[in-house]
């Protein structure tokens, strides 16, 4: 009996099937918890699913690379999903056009704040240079952020993690920040979440309100593009920070 089980495990641990299946299982369990909590932002499904997966992989001694061989099929869908954001954007286009000035001004201010404040605070508290470079694009969606980090000499896989933690923090905290500011406009709330917390914030915004979601999607796309332009320009400054 026991040799059979270990043989099955040898097969499973080498095939992409397991990584893919546990990703879907962990996410669905996390999503059920989230729904049961009444969509409480503190029960963020990404956070809970990642925690479950890290525990499982560590407990079974599975390497991340082995896991990712299966999970990459889910990861790949980030591309088509980004393209699909054009649809809510189209639906809300009238409202977006009416708010063109606030949208562009908010984007520029928010994008700069996200990059500069992350790097400055990290530097202030003694983060290393490669960490600072990996921090700079932390507010934009994973594939974009990893591409930026690669170009300026940071660590792309570290960026992926920082991006996701940022997204979770944004999705967790946005409601409390906006309520404290007495800000109600779903368009502004959505746009600010999209600038600060990319796709994870956008996912949260869609669950709250369709208009918020569309504005978050717009913000996420625009900020991805703007950050890809700004960070390479700011990179020499980040390098200088540490050498001083």
């Amino acid at each position, binding site marked *: 009996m026991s040799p059979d089980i270990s043989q099955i495990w040898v097969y499973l641990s080498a095939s992409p099937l397991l990584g893919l299946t546990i990703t879907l299982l962990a996410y669905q369990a996390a999503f059920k918890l989230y729904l049961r909590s009444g969509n409480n932002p503190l029960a963020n499904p990404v956070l809970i699913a990642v925690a479950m997966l890290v525990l499982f992989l560590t407990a079974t001694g599975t390497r991340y690379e082995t896991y990712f061989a299966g999970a990459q099929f889910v990861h790949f869908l980030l591309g088509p999903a980004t393209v699909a954001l054009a649809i809510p954007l189209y639906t809300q286009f009238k409202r977006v056009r009416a708010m063109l000035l606030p949208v562009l001004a908010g984007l520029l201010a928010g994008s700069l704040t996200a990059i500069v404040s992350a790097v400055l605070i990290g530097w202030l508290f003694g983060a290393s240079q490669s960490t600072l470079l990996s921090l700079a694009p932390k507010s934009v969606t994973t594939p974009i952020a990893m591409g930026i980090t690669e170009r300026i000499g940071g660590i792309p896989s570290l960026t992926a993690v920082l991006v*996701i933690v940022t997204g979770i923090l944004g999705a967790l905290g946005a409601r409390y*920040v*906006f309520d404290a500011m007495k*800000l109600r406009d779903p368009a502004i709330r959505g746009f600010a979440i999209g600038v600060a917390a990319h796709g994870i914030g956008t*996912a949260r915004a869609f669950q709250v309100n369709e208009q918020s979601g569309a504005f978050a999607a717009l913000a996420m796309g625009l900020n991805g593009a703007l950050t890809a332009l700004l960070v390479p320009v700011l990179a020499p400054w980040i390098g200088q920070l540490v050498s001083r």
Partner: protein
Amino acid sequence: MLSALTQLLIFQLAGEVVARGLALPIPGPVLGMLFLFIALMLRQGPDKELQTTSQNLLQHLSLLFVPAGTGIMVHLHRVADEWLPLLLSLLISTVATLVVTALVMKLCQRAPTAPGEAP
């Protein structure tokens, strides 16, 4: 579903090709989103299938971040060594970005109010 998924992939592919071909700093999928948006403007909206498939895909957008997020296990060392600067940086910067973006938008919105809008 199949034709909708194919459409999304074609737009992503077009975005990738243009981004790389012209060496643009904008990532392929973002350009793909822009192209699809332009196509939607031209044909006055998505077909029903594209609408449904996209909705399904976006409904579980957060699932798509799980594989990359699990990558934290590779960086546990660095995270343990630098957890304080990392946490403070991400936390303060995220709140600051939310506040600054929302405030700037609110200020700009107040300046030129559209008089023709319904009350």
